[in-house]
């Protein structure tokens, strides 16, 4: 058999399944964006209150806190883990921001971020070095961190936010809310880190096949620890921004955000088993959840419990599609 003949045969053999695999991969990674666009169009046609600039800004601002957390969560899930501590870290972050504000607006951002990073460091070390399960470690952190937040502030701490701190969360640049800028820039940087740095490729590799990644020379433990630190830091920061936005440190803030951030990532095509996902998808997931909340809120005659129901149904459908697509591809 001639060399070129063999090559041609190999190529022909792989062509059709590869085209289908590419299509499926495209649906998996970009499907959420399509659904988001579709949902926006439907909501705009159906509800007159929906398609206004003010309402879009509402959705964006409201979703920005979840968005920041979802960035970290997406890194962690692609890595093959998940982080349940982020909701509690929002609460702790907002309380710490309130305490730190007297020392300056920078302290009110830095202290929550460092505290979140420290919790992430402990989580990461226990998971990567001690080999404990992410579920247990971050569940313990969820409980413990919320406890710390409640000890620090039983009731919410009202703070004055006239200065820079308030401006960060409530100001605008070019007519767009700062919070929206922050989360969009955050996602953009995260996308570059994920796809264009050795760290990002290593995250994909570990989530895709941890044993192989280790064999290929990826510093698995270090990457894991770093990823939990990133997630914790972003959650602490999200709490600080929430405090600035609401002019108060609230120890009970962020409850359930850990699960919502996982839901957002999964709806956005990030595989819960790790190794696959995009930041654009995760952002779409965040916005979809925000859109559902926004619409149900404004319909008025529906209780907000329906938000949870709708989100749950959405999540289930997303996972169902993922599962079917993944099986097709194999």
């Amino acid at each position, binding site marked *: *058999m001639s*060399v070129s003949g*063999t*090559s*041609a*045969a*190999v*190529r022909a*053999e*792989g062509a059709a*399944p*590869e085209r289908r*695999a*590419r299509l499926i*991969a495209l649906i998996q990674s970009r499907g959420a964006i399509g659904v988001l666009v579709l949902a926006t169009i439907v909501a705009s046609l159906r509800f007159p209150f929906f398609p206004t600039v003010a309402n879009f800004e509402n959705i964006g601002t409201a979703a920005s806190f979840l968005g920041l957390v979802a960035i970290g969560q997406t890194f962690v899930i692609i890595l093959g883990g998940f982080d349940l501590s982020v909701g509690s870290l929002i609460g702790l972050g907002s309380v710490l921001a309130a305490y730190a504000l007297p020392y300056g607006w920078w302290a009110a951002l830095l202290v929550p971020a460092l505290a979140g990073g420290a919790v992430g460091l402990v989580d990461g070390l226990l998971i990567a070095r001690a080999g404990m399960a992410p579920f247990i470690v971050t569940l313990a952190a969820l409980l413990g961190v919320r406890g710390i937040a409640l000890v620090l502030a039983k009731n919410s701490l009202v703070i004055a936010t006239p200065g820079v701190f308030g401006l960060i969360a409530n100001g605008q640049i070019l007519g767009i809310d700062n919070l929206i800028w922050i989360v969009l820039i955050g996602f953009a940087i995260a996308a*570059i880190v994920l796809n*264009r*740095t*050795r760290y990002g*490729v*290593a995250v*994909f*590799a570990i989530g*895709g*096949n941890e*044993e*192989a*990644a280790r*064999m*290929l*020379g*990826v510093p698995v433990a270090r990457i894991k620890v770093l990823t939990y630190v990133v997630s914790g830091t972003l959650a602490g920061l999200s709490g600080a921004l929430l405090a600035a936005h609401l002019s108060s440190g609230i120890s009970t803030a962020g409850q359930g955000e850990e699960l919502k951030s996982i839901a957002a990532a999964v709806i956005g095509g990030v595989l819960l088993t790790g*190794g*696959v996902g995009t930041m654009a998808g995760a952002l779409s997931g965040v916005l979809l959840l925000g859109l559902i909340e926004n619409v149900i809120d404004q319909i008025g005659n529906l209780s907000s419990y329906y938000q949870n129901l709708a989100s749950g149904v959405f999540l289930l459908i997303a996972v169902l599609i993922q599962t079917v697509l993944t099986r097709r591809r194999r």
Partner: protein
Amino acid sequence: MSDIILETRAVSKRFGAVQALSDVSFALRAGEVHGLAGENGAGKSTLIKILTGFYQPDEGEIILSGTAVRLDSPRAAQRQGISAVYQEINLIPERSVAENLFLGNEPRRFGVLIDRARMERSAAELLARYDLAIDPRARLGALGLGLQQMVSIARGVRLGARVAILDEPSSALTGTEVETLYRVVDRLKADGIAILFVSHRLSESYRLCDRLTVLRDGRVVASEAVADLPRAALIGAMLGRNAEAIHGNRPARTPREGVAAFEASGLRWRNRVRDVSFAVRPGEVVGLAGLLGSGRTETMKASFGAETKEGGAIRVGGSSVPSTTPGRSIAAGLAFLSEDRRAEGIFPKLSVAENLTATALPRIARFGFVSQRKQAAMVAEFTKVLGIKTAGPNAPITSLSGGNQQKVLLARCLATAPRAIMLDDPTRGIDVGAKAEVHEAINRLVEQGLGVLVTSSEMEELMALADRLIVLTEGAVTGATSTDGLEVQDVLDILAQPHEAVAHP
């Protein structure tokens, strides 16, 4: 011949009571393809794991380019230039080919951002050098297994491999993929890389290798240039003819006429089981003879439903089992004892009693509650019948010797009161005494009318157990013979015939 690159000198390794390797010495030369042959448990994987840094030898040394080295981790072995490709691909299927080739040392711009264009260009050059028509941007998992293995080899070469170990690279490859593999191996050879090649397909070994080393029971029993080792001699060396004198123990018996205890027709599974048909009568032992990789295990698994057959029919006691699953097979009266006791046999955390009755629970339970009394009675019965040596029914299964664990698993099969039973290498890794006891137990059961299909990695044992043999080669039946008056050499001759007629689909 050219320079020795990698050499083992008197390497030995034992695991508990098992001497996995004794005194193994062999040399791998630059530009040489060196085949490693041997049956299950001969020590091939142990040797490879020592060369790739997974295990440390108890004795002996490894010499790499003239100096003794310690390979104390897989990464250390890789750094020393020993690159291994396994059947299980150790790459990241969801990422691109280029990323897999360069993971960990991607070319970068500004010291931070990965330069994808340059990475993909370099990847394309590397792949072109081995004449591989692979798009560097393709998702690795979208490639066939064979091309994935080629990528793995290319990665090794890129990182400066001097030794490439190919562990059963071709077992699951299609025809074109095998051709690609051959071409890459030839190129590696030309580049002066030493290749250790493990394959169960003799025709492949003869096509590719310059030299063959045969292991049996952890020892080197032959190491010759291919020209000096004809097929019959190779197979003789692999299977050995010095097994214990258990041959001739087989009682004379006449299988019952009438409906077959168990029957397969036109069985197909991937390209590993090709249109296999056979029948086992009640009171008869049929041996599936074939080398490792001939499809003997796969035939059993496809019959039982442990693998989903892609064609063919199974009949147990005359009635067909329409879509085979292990549960339905058991219900129909078919039992299967896996060759892999640890992975597919015992429940290591459960007791002897729980292990023994695991598949027979419906027989000893009422309304979903297991009757302790009936369970105890069942365990007592089989412990006595099979002579299981245990501290008691509640002893953990792992406290038993390998032979006694195997008897518990045999009892588990029998506890479902099967009409026919498939035993895949039932005495693998157990001592001689236990072996004889298992043989006796099998003979007794056959006397009572059970139909038995059996394989063994020892030809002598197969001849001692079976009334007749069905010969498998590369997944297809290539012969059938009664064992009466048959000599081991006769079977070896059948196995040694090249079967070019067996077409690869």
